[in-house]
């Protein structure tokens, strides 16, 4: 059964790029445009890996990570932050909120697949 990855980003381009890359690698991908929407989507069932942007409207990535880690259902799901180099401070914040790892935008598709594999249970 294909692994299910949830990509959370307010940029449609970024979401589609992540989805495109991972679908080609055989993953099942769902998309959410902010933290709040991600939580809605996760109500339907937990993801195997979550990839989230940090800077988003409504609910940002750090809050999303913190919220998920406080929920027993999502406590141990690998969460990757998709960040830019200018998010350095935010990255540390995300890490302490419970993020598993990170990827730097713009990402190399192979690296994305690689990292997703690396953190997948």
């Amino acid at each position, binding site marked *: *059964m*294909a*692994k299910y990855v949830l990509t959370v980003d*307010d*940029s*449609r*381009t*970024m979401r*589609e*790029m992540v989805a*495109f890359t991972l679908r080609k*690698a*055989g*993953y*099942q*991908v*769902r*998309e*959410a*445009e902010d933290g709040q*929407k*991600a939580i*809605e*989507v996760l109500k*339907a069932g937990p993801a195997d890996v979550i990839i989230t942007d940090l*800077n*988003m*409207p409504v609910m940002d990535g750090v809050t999303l990570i913190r919220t998920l*880690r406080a929920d027993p259902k999502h*406590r*141990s*799901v*690998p*969460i990757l932050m998709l960040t*830019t180099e*200018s998010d350095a401070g935010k990255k540390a914040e995300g*890490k302490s909120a*419970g*993020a*598993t*790892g*990170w990827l730097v*935008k*713009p*990402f190399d598709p192979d690296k994305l697949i690689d990292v997703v594999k*690396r*953190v*997948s*249970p």
Partner: protein
Amino acid sequence: MNFDHLRATYFEESAELLESAYSHLAALAEGRADGDTVHALFRAIHSIKGGGGAFGFDRLVALAHVMETLLDLLRDGALAFDDGLIGLLLRGADMLADLLAAERSGEALADGIEAELAGAFARAAGLDTSRVVPVAVAAPGSEAVQGWQIRFRPHPALFRNANEPLLLVRELRRLGAVEVRADLSALPALDRLEPEDAYITWSFGLTTSAPRAKVEEVFEFVVDDCALEIEPRVSAEVAKPLMAAEAAVQPEAAGAPAQLAGRAEASAAQSVRVDVVKVDRLVNLVGELVINQAMLVQLGGQLPPDLCPGLIGGLETLSQHLRELQEGVMAIRTQPVRSVFARMPRLVRELSAQLGKEVRLVITGEATEIDKTVVEQLADPLTHLLRNALDHGVEPPEVREAAGKPRQGTVHLSAEQRSGRIVIELSDDGRGIDRARVLARARERGLIAPDAVLSDAETDELIFLPSFSTAAVVSAVSGRGVGMDVVRRNIQALGGRITVESRFGAGSRFLLSLPLTLAVLDGLVVSVGAEAFILPISAIVESLRPPASDILALPGRGAVLSIRGGYVPLLPLHERLGIPDAVTDASRAIVVIVETDNAGRLGLVVDDLVGQQQVVVKSLEANYGPIDGIGGATILGDGRVALILDIPGLATSARPAPPPRPAAEPALALH
């Protein structure tokens, strides 16, 4: 989906993001900003940059990056917004738009045109621009080692981030053979054990040719949450494994997970993107239904009411639902005029700088929705009107001051829905139309008789005539001809009308009235012989049955109708379309006076007016090819097909070609 598709998505999204950036900047400039405005602005630029990087649009990324740096300072309150910074950000957004357009079209912009701007951002953000920070590229040394000895002592909190030593082992095994030792000495007694803490220290003996960087990469995400030592393995000494890696690690699923087919992917998005073709098919189908329903109603009306008492009520309910369905489907095609309005502030900024004028553009009603096709085709006429307003309307600051006006001129662009149509208004507080000059010009060009007496409104209308220009100086902005005839033609092609009101010295106001959709037309059904035709209501000025004394025959040029001191050429439709058994005597027929953009007013001679109704436009071109004078077809309630007349097309074929201009007169630049 492929790479081109992703690119298209990126450009589409970037255009939307830029649009939102412009409106946030406008909000900041006008003091309407709230706490989230600068964050939203930052995100917009950030997303453009993020996607741009993925496609290797380096120049764009570099500019967006310095903009982002500045916005970051503004966001944190380290800097405060002022007009200078807003202006700078607007210029930055303009440049991003240009760079995006260049990437999209594949035409590279001149090298370094953004450099000056990027420098300005860097200076505004307080960056030292003299020092270029080199990008550090880690060159992994090719250490010739047989492998690595790794000691990994996780901090207790390792698991809280969903990191997992077993996954690290799995990764290391991809690099080579791994021997694993677990040091359990730190493991507390069961009653003191925190089940979610990490206690075990691991030693990995990795036999591999992979460089250190590869090994470090495996620990990339945990390096801050552990004590990590990586030493080259110099000897082939192999420690006896306490635990075989194979036993600890679940075998990795072979290859990539299987492609999952058939399982619906629930999208979290609140909107769906639909191909316009699909929407058009829906619009068309609903159109068919509307026609069908009209036929049913007509048939139902012929039945004796007691034959089937429920039928009439049922048909009425059907009509009502159908109307709602039609409106709903039409609404899918509509789009806020924002997308075209959003281009105007930039135009005003650039033009006013170029012309040395101070102009404030006020936009209202940009959320008003109108058919997508109409929105797309509005850009040219609006740009034109705006150029004219700035070039010919708004005076230079000194002139304005001398006239007792504020130095800064105001141009107001608005849209609103008014009784089933969209009204777009563009007004300025400039000098208005100089009617004396317009009249003089029209006489000079032979557009009106030397002794003609025109009302103010009629005088203003003259500016819509082809090749009319009052610009005293040929300007780079508007060119020679004002090109208002082209504007009118564009608007009429959209089924709209344009009118102007002006007060000399106080400004002008252009009103564009447009249909909500192009798929449905407000038509006047007229009969000629046994045939019915549809005239677009938007073109009709008036209809009358003229007395015979007002109809004058011109030898060789047909007949004209004398009306209120002017003459309107008559075009008998039965003649033009070859229809037998029609009323040939214009004084016993009906004359419908229509407005054309290319030939002034024209009197169409028809037998009778049947009624006014909304008709669903069916394209003839798809099946027959274009026919001069016919704009399309529709099906009437009684099932008859009626042709929709194309007024400009009729007018062209009705009039003899205009006499050639004297050679001395240069052709006017219409644009």
